[in-house]
Protein backbone atom coordinates (compact mmCIF):
# COMPACT_ATOMS: atom_id res chain seq x y z
CA UNK A 1 0.00 0.00 0.00
CA UNK A 2 2.82 2.41 0.77
CA UNK A 3 4.33 1.75 -2.65
CA UNK A 4 0.94 2.54 -4.20
CA UNK A 5 0.83 6.00 -2.63
CA UNK A 6 4.52 6.55 -3.29
CA UNK A 7 4.09 5.81 -7.01
CA UNK A 8 0.92 7.88 -7.13
CA UNK A 9 2.42 10.94 -5.50
CA UNK A 10 5.71 10.67 -7.40
CA UNK A 11 3.92 10.53 -10.76
CA UNK A 12 1.54 13.30 -9.78
CA UNK A 13 4.30 15.60 -8.54
CA UNK A 14 6.32 14.90 -11.68
CA UNK A 15 3.36 15.76 -13.92
CA UNK A 16 2.57 18.94 -12.02
CA UNK A 17 6.21 20.01 -12.11
CA UNK A 18 6.41 19.33 -15.86
CA UNK A 19 3.24 21.30 -16.41
CA UNK A 20 4.41 24.13 -14.14
CA UNK A 21 7.62 24.51 -16.13
CA UNK A 22 6.29 24.05 -19.66
CA UNK A 23 2.61 25.06 -19.23
CA UNK A 24 1.97 23.21 -22.51
CA UNK A 25 -1.40 21.70 -21.71
CA UNK A 26 -2.76 24.63 -19.75
CA UNK A 27 -1.81 27.26 -22.30
CA UNK A 28 -3.21 25.35 -25.24
CA UNK A 29 -6.40 24.54 -23.32
CA UNK A 30 -6.87 28.14 -22.24
CA UNK A 31 -6.35 29.59 -25.68
CA UNK A 32 -8.51 26.91 -27.26
CA UNK A 33 -11.45 27.49 -24.94
CA UNK A 34 -11.04 31.25 -25.28
CA UNK A 35 -11.42 30.82 -29.04
CA UNK A 36 -14.51 28.69 -28.53
CA UNK A 37 -16.04 31.33 -26.25
CA UNK A 38 -15.32 34.13 -28.73
CA UNK A 39 -16.80 32.14 -31.63
CA UNK A 40 -19.89 31.41 -29.57
CA UNK A 41 -20.25 35.09 -28.68
CA UNK A 42 -20.16 35.99 -32.37
CA UNK A 43 -22.57 33.21 -33.33
CA UNK A 44 -25.22 33.87 -30.69
CA UNK A 45 -25.92 37.31 -29.39
CA UNK A 46 -28.54 36.52 -26.80
CA UNK A 47 -30.30 38.58 -24.18
CA UNK A 48 -29.48 37.82 -20.55
CA UNK A 49 -32.73 35.91 -20.19
CA UNK A 50 -32.04 33.56 -23.13
CA UNK A 51 -28.38 33.17 -22.34
CA UNK A 52 -29.20 31.50 -19.04
CA UNK A 53 -30.82 28.71 -21.01
CA UNK A 54 -28.02 28.12 -23.48
CA UNK A 55 -24.87 29.02 -21.58
CA UNK A 56 -24.81 25.71 -19.66
CA UNK A 57 -24.40 23.87 -22.94
CA UNK A 58 -21.81 26.33 -24.30
CA UNK A 59 -19.65 26.23 -21.17
CA UNK A 60 -19.46 22.46 -21.10
CA UNK A 61 -18.88 22.09 -24.82
CA UNK A 62 -15.95 24.51 -24.50
CA UNK A 63 -14.53 22.60 -21.51
CA UNK A 64 -15.09 19.22 -23.15
CA UNK A 65 -13.13 20.23 -26.25
CA UNK A 66 -10.43 21.87 -24.17
CA UNK A 67 -10.11 18.80 -21.94
CA UNK A 68 -9.48 16.62 -24.98
CA UNK A 69 -6.48 18.83 -25.82
CA UNK A 70 -4.97 18.14 -22.39
CA UNK A 71 -5.91 14.46 -22.35
CA UNK A 72 -4.22 13.83 -25.68
CA UNK A 73 -0.93 15.04 -24.23
CA UNK A 74 -1.14 13.11 -20.99
CA UNK A 75 0.18 9.76 -22.23
CA UNK A 76 2.03 10.98 -25.32
CA UNK A 77 4.53 12.49 -22.88
CA UNK A 78 5.31 9.02 -21.50
CA UNK A 79 6.02 7.55 -24.93
CA UNK A 80 9.21 9.56 -25.32
CA UNK A 81 12.24 7.59 -24.12
CA UNK A 82 10.02 4.51 -23.64
CA UNK A 83 8.89 5.63 -20.18
CA UNK A 84 5.64 3.73 -20.56
CA UNK A 85 7.44 0.52 -21.50
CA UNK A 86 9.68 0.91 -18.47
CA UNK A 87 6.57 1.35 -16.36
CA UNK A 88 5.05 -1.77 -17.88
CA UNK A 89 7.95 -4.01 -16.89
CA UNK A 90 8.28 -2.49 -13.42
CA UNK A 91 6.31 -4.07 -10.55
CA UNK A 92 4.66 -0.71 -9.71
CA UNK A 93 0.85 -0.94 -9.46
CA UNK A 94 -0.83 0.14 -12.70
CA UNK A 95 -3.72 1.80 -10.91
CA UNK A 96 -1.38 4.17 -9.08
CA UNK A 97 -0.20 5.47 -12.45
CA UNK A 98 -3.78 5.76 -13.69
CA UNK A 99 -5.00 7.61 -10.61
CA UNK A 100 -2.03 9.97 -10.68
CA UNK A 101 -2.71 10.80 -14.33
CA UNK A 102 -6.43 11.29 -13.64
CA UNK A 103 -5.85 13.52 -10.64
CA UNK A 104 -3.29 15.53 -12.61
CA UNK A 105 -5.71 16.06 -15.49
CA UNK A 106 -8.45 16.87 -13.02
CA UNK A 107 -6.29 19.63 -11.53
CA UNK A 108 -5.40 21.08 -14.94
CA UNK A 109 -8.98 21.09 -16.20
CA UNK A 110 -10.20 22.56 -12.89
CA UNK A 111 -7.70 25.41 -13.17
CA UNK A 112 -8.91 26.01 -16.71
CA UNK A 113 -12.52 26.11 -15.54
CA UNK A 114 -11.70 28.51 -12.72
CA UNK A 115 -10.02 30.85 -15.19
CA UNK A 116 -12.65 30.60 -17.92
CA UNK A 117 -15.82 30.89 -15.86
CA UNK A 118 -15.39 34.65 -15.19
CA UNK A 119 -15.04 35.17 -18.95
CA UNK A 120 -18.34 33.44 -19.59
CA UNK A 121 -19.97 35.59 -16.93
CA UNK A 122 -18.60 38.75 -18.53
CA UNK A 123 -19.44 37.85 -22.12
CA UNK A 124 -22.96 36.66 -21.40
CA UNK A 125 -23.92 39.06 -18.55
CA UNK A 126 -24.82 36.08 -16.41
CA UNK A 127 -26.35 36.25 -13.04
CA UNK A 128 -27.42 33.11 -11.29
CA UNK A 129 -31.06 32.72 -10.23
CA UNK A 130 -30.78 29.34 -8.46
CA UNK A 131 -28.60 28.25 -5.53
CA UNK A 132 -25.14 29.12 -6.92
CA UNK A 133 -23.18 26.81 -4.57
CA UNK A 134 -24.62 23.82 -6.39
CA UNK A 135 -22.50 24.74 -9.40
CA UNK A 136 -19.42 23.65 -7.43
CA UNK A 137 -20.41 19.97 -6.96
CA UNK A 138 -21.68 19.90 -10.56
CA UNK A 139 -18.36 21.26 -11.82
CA UNK A 140 -16.23 18.96 -9.67
CA UNK A 141 -18.18 15.79 -10.38
CA UNK A 142 -18.57 16.65 -14.05
CA UNK A 143 -14.87 17.36 -14.48
CA UNK A 144 -13.96 14.09 -12.79
CA UNK A 145 -16.41 12.26 -15.07
CA UNK A 146 -14.73 13.70 -18.16
CA UNK A 147 -11.21 13.23 -16.88
CA UNK A 148 -11.42 9.68 -15.54
CA UNK A 149 -12.87 8.29 -18.76
CA UNK A 150 -10.69 10.58 -20.84
CA UNK A 151 -7.51 9.33 -19.17
CA UNK A 152 -8.61 5.75 -19.69
CA UNK A 153 -9.51 6.21 -23.35
CA UNK A 154 -6.37 8.23 -23.99
CA UNK A 155 -4.36 5.24 -22.77
CA UNK A 156 -6.48 3.06 -25.03
CA UNK A 157 -6.05 5.21 -28.13
CA UNK A 158 -2.26 5.23 -27.67
CA UNK A 159 -2.22 1.87 -29.46
CA UNK A 160 -4.19 3.04 -32.47
CA UNK A 161 -3.30 4.82 -35.67
CA UNK A 162 -4.08 8.57 -35.63
CA UNK A 163 -4.67 8.52 -31.90
CA UNK A 164 -5.37 12.25 -31.61
CA UNK A 165 -8.65 11.85 -33.46
CA UNK A 166 -9.43 8.52 -31.79
CA UNK A 167 -9.80 9.95 -28.27
CA UNK A 168 -12.90 12.12 -28.89
CA UNK A 169 -14.46 9.36 -30.98
CA UNK A 170 -14.23 6.98 -28.03
CA UNK A 171 -14.83 9.48 -25.24
CA UNK A 172 -17.85 11.44 -26.47
CA UNK A 173 -20.37 8.59 -26.92
CA UNK A 174 -19.60 7.17 -23.49
CA UNK A 175 -19.71 10.65 -21.91
CA UNK A 176 -23.20 11.52 -23.16
CA UNK A 177 -24.98 10.82 -19.83
CA UNK A 178 -22.35 12.83 -17.94
CA UNK A 179 -22.51 15.74 -20.39
CA UNK A 180 -26.28 15.69 -20.16
CA UNK A 181 -26.06 15.78 -16.37
CA UNK A 182 -23.60 18.68 -16.38
CA UNK A 183 -25.48 20.75 -18.95
CA UNK A 184 -28.94 20.12 -17.52
CA UNK A 185 -27.68 20.63 -13.95
CA UNK A 186 -25.94 23.90 -14.81
CA UNK A 187 -29.00 25.16 -16.68
CA UNK A 188 -31.22 24.21 -13.74
CA UNK A 189 -29.06 26.24 -11.35
CA UNK A 190 -28.69 29.21 -13.70
CA UNK A 191 -32.38 29.54 -14.44
CA UNK A 192 -33.52 28.47 -10.97
CA UNK A 193 -36.52 26.78 -12.60
CA UNK A 194 -36.00 23.30 -11.23
CA UNK A 195 -33.81 21.45 -8.79
CA UNK A 196 -30.34 20.22 -9.78
CA UNK A 197 -30.27 17.48 -7.11
CA UNK A 198 -31.13 14.72 -9.56
CA UNK A 199 -28.26 15.69 -11.85
CA UNK A 200 -25.76 15.79 -8.99
CA UNK A 201 -26.81 12.27 -8.00
CA UNK A 202 -26.60 11.19 -11.64
CA UNK A 203 -23.06 12.58 -11.96
CA UNK A 204 -22.05 10.93 -8.70
CA UNK A 205 -23.37 7.57 -9.93
CA UNK A 206 -21.60 8.01 -13.24
CA UNK A 207 -18.33 8.85 -11.47
CA UNK A 208 -18.53 5.86 -9.13
CA UNK A 209 -19.41 3.41 -11.92
CA UNK A 210 -16.74 4.55 -14.35
CA UNK A 211 -13.99 5.09 -11.79
CA UNK A 212 -14.52 1.51 -10.65
CA UNK A 213 -14.60 0.20 -14.22
CA UNK A 214 -11.45 2.12 -15.16
CA UNK A 215 -9.55 0.88 -12.12
CA UNK A 216 -10.67 -2.68 -12.83
CA UNK A 217 -9.64 -2.61 -16.48
CA UNK A 218 -6.65 -0.28 -16.60
CA UNK A 219 -4.14 -3.00 -15.74
CA UNK A 220 -5.42 -5.08 -18.66
CA UNK A 221 -5.14 -2.12 -21.03
CA UNK A 222 -1.65 -1.18 -19.88
CA UNK A 223 -0.28 -4.70 -20.08
CA UNK A 224 -2.21 -5.83 -23.18
CA UNK A 225 0.30 -7.31 -25.58
Amino acid at each position, binding site marked *: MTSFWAVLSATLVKDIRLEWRSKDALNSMLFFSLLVVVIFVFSFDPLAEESRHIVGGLVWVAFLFAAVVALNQTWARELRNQVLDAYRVSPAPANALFLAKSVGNFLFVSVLEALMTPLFIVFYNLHVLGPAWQLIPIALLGTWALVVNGTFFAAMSLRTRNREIMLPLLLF*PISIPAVLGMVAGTTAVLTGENSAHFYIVLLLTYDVVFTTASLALFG*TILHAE
Partner: protein
Amino acid sequence: MKKIFPILSIVTVALLGYALYLALVVAPTDALQGEVYRIIYYHVPSAWTAFLLFFINFVASIRYLTRSKASTENAAKWVAIGIGVVGLVAPFLPPVRRLIPPGMEPSAVATTIVLIPALYFLVGKLFPGDRLDVLAVTSAEVGVVFCTIVLITGPLWARPVWGIWWAPGDIRLTSTLVLWLIYVSYLVLRRFSNSAQTQMLAAALAVFGALDVPLVYLSIWFFRTQHPQPVIGGGGSMDPRMLHVLLFSWLAFLLFGFLVCWSRFRLELLKREVEQAHAMESLAGAEDSEKASLPLSRSSR
Protein backbone atom coordinates in the same frame (compact mmCIF):
# COMPACT_ATOMS: atom_id res chain seq x y z
CA MET B 1 -22.17 -27.25 -42.15
CA LYS B 2 -21.78 -26.08 -45.73
CA LYS B 3 -24.94 -27.90 -46.82
CA ILE B 4 -27.07 -26.33 -44.10
CA PHE B 5 -26.19 -22.79 -45.18
CA PRO B 6 -27.95 -22.74 -48.58
CA ILE B 7 -30.94 -24.61 -47.14
CA LEU B 8 -31.18 -22.10 -44.32
CA SER B 9 -30.87 -19.23 -46.80
CA ILE B 10 -33.84 -20.52 -48.79
CA VAL B 11 -35.87 -20.99 -45.62
CA THR B 12 -35.00 -17.44 -44.52
CA VAL B 13 -36.01 -15.92 -47.87
CA ALA B 14 -39.29 -17.83 -47.72
CA LEU B 15 -39.94 -16.72 -44.15
CA LEU B 16 -39.11 -13.08 -44.91
CA GLY B 17 -41.40 -13.17 -47.93
CA TYR B 18 -44.22 -14.72 -45.93
CA ALA B 19 -43.66 -12.20 -43.12
CA LEU B 20 -43.96 -9.37 -45.66
CA TYR B 21 -47.19 -10.87 -46.97
CA LEU B 22 -48.52 -11.19 -43.40
CA ALA B 23 -47.51 -7.63 -42.56
CA LEU B 24 -48.99 -6.03 -45.67
CA VAL B 25 -52.06 -8.14 -46.31
CA VAL B 26 -53.08 -10.36 -43.41
CA ALA B 27 -52.50 -8.05 -40.42
CA PRO B 28 -55.54 -5.88 -39.65
CA THR B 29 -55.33 -2.12 -40.15
CA ASP B 30 -54.73 -0.10 -37.01
CA ALA B 31 -57.80 1.74 -35.74
CA LEU B 32 -55.95 4.97 -34.96
CA GLN B 33 -52.91 5.05 -37.23
CA GLY B 34 -54.26 3.40 -40.37
CA GLU B 35 -51.91 1.69 -42.78
CA VAL B 36 -48.84 3.61 -41.59
CA TYR B 37 -48.49 1.43 -38.52
CA ARG B 38 -47.44 -1.56 -40.67
CA ILE B 39 -43.84 -0.37 -40.44
CA ILE B 40 -43.94 -1.84 -36.92
CA TYR B 41 -43.28 -5.24 -38.47
CA TYR B 42 -39.89 -3.97 -39.58
CA HIS B 43 -39.14 -1.51 -36.78
CA VAL B 44 -39.73 -3.67 -33.71
CA PRO B 45 -38.17 -6.97 -34.91
CA SER B 46 -35.06 -5.03 -36.00
CA ALA B 47 -34.83 -3.39 -32.59
CA TRP B 48 -35.13 -6.70 -30.73
CA THR B 49 -32.57 -8.35 -32.98
CA ALA B 50 -30.16 -5.42 -32.57
CA PHE B 51 -30.46 -5.43 -28.76
CA LEU B 52 -29.96 -9.20 -28.66
CA LEU B 53 -26.83 -8.90 -30.81
CA PHE B 54 -25.43 -6.10 -28.64
CA PHE B 55 -26.03 -8.24 -25.60
CA ILE B 56 -24.21 -11.16 -27.21
CA ASN B 57 -21.34 -8.76 -27.93
CA PHE B 58 -21.27 -7.76 -24.25
CA VAL B 59 -21.24 -11.38 -23.06
CA ALA B 60 -18.50 -12.33 -25.52
CA SER B 61 -16.42 -9.29 -24.45
CA ILE B 62 -16.77 -10.13 -20.76
CA ARG B 63 -15.74 -13.71 -21.43
CA TYR B 64 -12.81 -12.53 -23.52
CA LEU B 65 -11.61 -10.14 -20.80
CA THR B 66 -11.93 -12.61 -17.95
CA ARG B 67 -10.45 -15.59 -19.75
CA SER B 68 -6.82 -14.52 -19.27
CA LYS B 69 -6.90 -15.29 -15.54
CA ALA B 70 -8.52 -18.35 -13.97
CA SER B 71 -9.57 -16.47 -10.82
CA THR B 72 -11.45 -13.72 -12.70
CA GLU B 73 -13.06 -16.29 -14.96
CA ASN B 74 -14.28 -18.15 -11.88
CA ALA B 75 -15.58 -14.93 -10.32
CA ALA B 76 -17.43 -14.02 -13.54
CA LYS B 77 -18.93 -17.50 -13.63
CA TRP B 78 -20.28 -17.17 -10.10
CA VAL B 79 -21.64 -13.68 -10.82
CA ALA B 80 -23.51 -15.11 -13.82
CA ILE B 81 -24.89 -17.96 -11.70
CA GLY B 82 -25.83 -15.45 -8.99
CA ILE B 83 -27.74 -13.30 -11.49
CA GLY B 84 -29.57 -16.41 -12.64
CA VAL B 85 -30.54 -17.52 -9.12
CA VAL B 86 -31.59 -14.03 -7.97
CA GLY B 87 -33.49 -13.47 -11.23
CA LEU B 88 -35.29 -16.77 -10.83
CA VAL B 89 -36.45 -16.09 -7.26
CA ALA B 90 -36.77 -12.31 -6.98
CA PRO B 91 -39.70 -11.66 -9.39
CA PHE B 92 -41.94 -13.87 -7.23
CA LEU B 93 -41.18 -12.01 -3.99
CA PRO B 94 -43.97 -9.57 -3.04
CA PRO B 95 -41.83 -6.36 -2.77
CA VAL B 96 -40.28 -6.94 -6.21
CA ARG B 97 -43.57 -8.10 -7.66
CA ARG B 98 -45.07 -4.69 -7.03
CA LEU B 99 -42.38 -3.09 -9.18
CA ILE B 100 -43.22 -5.21 -12.21
CA PRO B 101 -45.65 -3.37 -14.50
CA PRO B 102 -49.20 -4.76 -14.43
CA GLY B 103 -49.92 -7.28 -17.15
CA MET B 104 -46.36 -8.63 -17.05
CA GLU B 105 -46.11 -12.06 -15.50
CA PRO B 106 -43.40 -12.62 -12.84
CA SER B 107 -42.64 -15.97 -14.47
CA ALA B 108 -41.95 -14.21 -17.79
CA VAL B 109 -39.53 -11.81 -16.06
CA ALA B 110 -37.80 -14.74 -14.32
CA THR B 111 -37.42 -16.66 -17.59
CA THR B 112 -35.94 -13.62 -19.29
CA ILE B 113 -33.37 -13.09 -16.53
CA VAL B 114 -32.45 -16.79 -16.46
CA LEU B 115 -31.62 -16.45 -20.17
CA ILE B 116 -28.68 -14.17 -19.20
CA PRO B 117 -26.52 -16.87 -17.49
CA ALA B 118 -27.76 -19.42 -20.04
CA LEU B 119 -26.41 -17.22 -22.84
CA TYR B 120 -23.23 -16.65 -20.86
CA PHE B 121 -22.45 -20.36 -20.59
CA LEU B 122 -23.66 -21.12 -24.11
CA VAL B 123 -21.34 -18.49 -25.59
CA GLY B 124 -18.43 -19.83 -23.55
CA LYS B 125 -19.14 -23.40 -24.64
CA LEU B 126 -19.64 -22.71 -28.35
CA PHE B 127 -16.91 -20.13 -28.83
CA PRO B 128 -13.67 -21.14 -27.14
CA GLY B 129 -10.56 -18.95 -27.12
CA ASP B 130 -10.11 -16.39 -29.87
CA ARG B 131 -13.45 -17.26 -31.41
CA LEU B 132 -15.01 -15.16 -28.63
CA ASP B 133 -13.46 -12.08 -30.21
CA VAL B 134 -14.66 -13.11 -33.66
CA LEU B 135 -18.16 -13.47 -32.20
CA ALA B 136 -17.87 -10.02 -30.59
CA VAL B 137 -16.90 -8.26 -33.81
CA THR B 138 -19.54 -10.13 -35.81
CA SER B 139 -22.38 -9.37 -33.43
CA ALA B 140 -21.36 -5.71 -33.13
CA GLU B 141 -21.28 -5.22 -36.91
CA VAL B 142 -24.60 -6.93 -37.60
CA GLY B 143 -26.11 -5.24 -34.53
CA VAL B 144 -25.15 -1.81 -35.87
CA VAL B 145 -26.85 -2.64 -39.17
CA PHE B 146 -30.09 -3.64 -37.44
CA CYS B 147 -29.87 -0.62 -35.13
CA THR B 148 -29.49 1.62 -38.21
CA ILE B 149 -32.68 0.10 -39.64
CA VAL B 150 -34.43 0.95 -36.35
CA LEU B 151 -33.17 4.53 -36.41
CA ILE B 152 -34.28 5.01 -40.04
CA THR B 153 -37.70 3.38 -39.77
CA GLY B 154 -38.42 5.14 -36.46
CA PRO B 155 -38.50 8.73 -37.82
CA LEU B 156 -40.31 7.52 -40.97
CA TRP B 157 -43.04 6.22 -38.71
CA ALA B 158 -42.97 9.13 -36.27
CA ARG B 159 -43.44 11.84 -38.88
CA PRO B 160 -47.01 10.91 -39.89
CA VAL B 161 -48.05 9.70 -36.43
CA TRP B 162 -46.49 12.21 -34.02
CA GLY B 163 -46.01 15.02 -36.55
CA ILE B 164 -42.26 15.21 -35.84
CA TRP B 165 -39.31 13.22 -37.15
CA TRP B 166 -37.51 12.97 -33.86
CA ALA B 167 -38.50 13.59 -30.24
CA PRO B 168 -35.41 14.97 -28.49
CA GLY B 169 -35.30 13.97 -24.86
CA ASP B 170 -37.37 10.85 -25.37
CA ILE B 171 -35.95 7.98 -23.35
CA ARG B 172 -36.15 5.16 -25.87
CA LEU B 173 -35.11 7.19 -28.89
CA THR B 174 -32.13 8.77 -27.19
CA SER B 175 -30.88 5.58 -25.58
CA THR B 176 -31.10 3.71 -28.88
CA LEU B 177 -29.20 6.52 -30.59
CA VAL B 178 -26.50 6.52 -27.90
CA LEU B 179 -26.26 2.73 -28.12
CA TRP B 180 -25.74 3.08 -31.86
CA LEU B 181 -23.08 5.76 -31.33
CA ILE B 182 -21.24 3.60 -28.80
CA TYR B 183 -21.15 0.61 -31.12
CA VAL B 184 -20.09 2.73 -34.08
CA SER B 185 -17.19 4.00 -31.97
CA TYR B 186 -16.45 0.37 -31.10
CA LEU B 187 -16.21 -0.50 -34.79
CA VAL B 188 -14.08 2.61 -35.44
CA LEU B 189 -11.69 1.50 -32.70
CA ARG B 190 -11.42 -1.92 -34.30
CA ARG B 191 -10.78 -0.35 -37.69
CA PHE B 192 -8.11 2.08 -36.53
CA SER B 193 -6.22 -0.25 -34.28
CA ASN B 194 -4.77 -3.25 -36.03
CA SER B 195 -2.17 -4.22 -33.50
CA ALA B 196 -2.22 -7.36 -31.41
CA GLN B 197 -3.98 -5.57 -28.55
CA THR B 198 -7.05 -4.55 -30.56
CA GLN B 199 -9.14 -7.41 -29.19
CA MET B 200 -8.44 -6.56 -25.57
CA LEU B 201 -9.08 -2.82 -26.14
CA ALA B 202 -12.30 -3.52 -27.99
CA ALA B 203 -13.53 -5.86 -25.25
CA ALA B 204 -12.82 -3.18 -22.62
CA LEU B 205 -14.71 -0.59 -24.67
CA ALA B 206 -17.68 -2.96 -25.02
CA VAL B 207 -17.85 -3.29 -21.23
CA PHE B 208 -17.75 0.52 -20.87
CA GLY B 209 -20.51 0.82 -23.44
CA ALA B 210 -22.69 -1.70 -21.64
CA LEU B 211 -22.20 0.18 -18.34
CA ASP B 212 -23.19 3.38 -20.10
CA VAL B 213 -26.58 2.20 -21.32
CA PRO B 214 -28.36 2.12 -17.92
CA LEU B 215 -26.89 5.53 -17.12
CA VAL B 216 -28.19 6.95 -20.39
CA TYR B 217 -31.57 5.52 -19.49
CA LEU B 218 -31.38 7.06 -16.02
CA SER B 219 -30.23 10.44 -17.33
CA ILE B 220 -33.33 10.86 -19.50
CA TRP B 221 -35.61 9.46 -16.80
CA PHE B 222 -36.95 12.92 -16.00
CA PHE B 223 -38.25 13.64 -19.44
CA ARG B 224 -41.68 12.63 -20.58
CA THR B 225 -41.55 9.64 -22.86
CA GLN B 226 -43.26 9.94 -26.21
CA HIS B 227 -42.48 6.44 -27.41
CA PRO B 228 -45.24 3.91 -26.63
CA GLN B 229 -44.65 1.40 -23.87
CA PRO B 230 -43.49 -2.05 -25.00
CA VAL B 231 -46.34 -3.84 -26.71
CA ILE B 232 -45.48 -7.28 -25.33
CA GLY B 233 -46.47 -7.83 -21.72
CA GLY B 234 -46.76 -4.07 -21.10
CA GLY B 235 -50.47 -3.38 -21.34
CA GLY B 236 -51.56 -6.21 -23.57
CA SER B 237 -53.45 -3.71 -25.72
CA MET B 238 -52.30 -5.21 -29.00
CA ASP B 239 -54.63 -7.19 -31.21
CA PRO B 240 -53.60 -10.89 -30.98
CA ARG B 241 -53.58 -11.13 -34.79
CA MET B 242 -51.10 -8.23 -34.94
CA LEU B 243 -49.02 -9.82 -32.21
CA HIS B 244 -48.92 -13.06 -34.15
CA VAL B 245 -47.62 -11.26 -37.26
CA LEU B 246 -45.12 -9.31 -35.18
CA LEU B 247 -43.69 -12.42 -33.56
CA PHE B 248 -43.55 -14.17 -36.92
CA SER B 249 -41.68 -11.18 -38.38
CA TRP B 250 -39.27 -11.35 -35.48
CA LEU B 251 -38.62 -15.01 -36.16
CA ALA B 252 -37.83 -14.21 -39.80
CA PHE B 253 -35.56 -11.31 -38.80
CA LEU B 254 -33.80 -13.41 -36.19
CA LEU B 255 -33.10 -16.11 -38.71
CA PHE B 256 -31.91 -13.51 -41.21
CA GLY B 257 -29.66 -11.95 -38.55
CA PHE B 258 -28.31 -15.36 -37.61
CA LEU B 259 -27.55 -16.13 -41.24
CA VAL B 260 -25.71 -12.86 -41.79
CA CYS B 261 -23.78 -13.34 -38.53
CA TRP B 262 -22.85 -16.85 -39.54
CA SER B 263 -21.41 -15.89 -42.92
CA ARG B 264 -19.64 -12.89 -41.39
CA PHE B 265 -18.24 -15.16 -38.68
CA ARG B 266 -16.87 -17.60 -41.26
CA LEU B 267 -15.42 -14.74 -43.30
CA GLU B 268 -13.66 -13.28 -40.25
CA LEU B 269 -12.26 -16.71 -39.29
CA LEU B 270 -10.95 -17.24 -42.83
CA LYS B 271 -9.47 -13.73 -42.87
CA ARG B 272 -7.59 -14.43 -39.66
CA GLU B 273 -6.37 -17.78 -40.96
CA VAL B 274 -5.05 -16.11 -44.10
CA GLU B 275 -3.35 -13.39 -42.04
CA GLN B 276 -1.76 -16.02 -39.84
CA ALA B 277 -0.59 -18.02 -42.86
CA HIS B 278 0.92 -14.86 -44.36
CA ALA B 279 2.70 -14.10 -41.11
CA MET B 280 4.08 -17.62 -40.87
CA GLU B 281 5.16 -17.49 -44.51
CA SER B 282 7.01 -14.22 -44.15
CA LEU B 283 8.61 -15.53 -40.95
CA ALA B 284 9.82 -18.66 -42.74
CA GLY B 285 10.91 -16.53 -45.69
CA ALA B 286 12.92 -14.26 -43.43
CA GLU B 287 14.69 -17.26 -41.90
CA ASP B 288 15.50 -18.67 -45.34
CA SER B 289 16.85 -15.41 -46.67
CA GLU B 290 18.91 -15.02 -43.52
CA LYS B 291 20.49 -18.44 -44.10
CA ALA B 292 21.03 -17.66 -47.77
CA SER B 293 22.51 -14.24 -47.22
CA LEU B 294 24.87 -15.28 -44.45
CA PRO B 295 27.57 -16.97 -46.58
CA LEU B 296 27.24 -14.23 -49.18
CA SER B 297 27.84 -11.45 -46.71
CA ARG B 298 30.77 -13.34 -45.31
CA SER B 299 32.31 -13.90 -48.71
CA SER B 300 31.81 -10.28 -49.66
CA ARG B 301 33.72 -9.32 -46.58
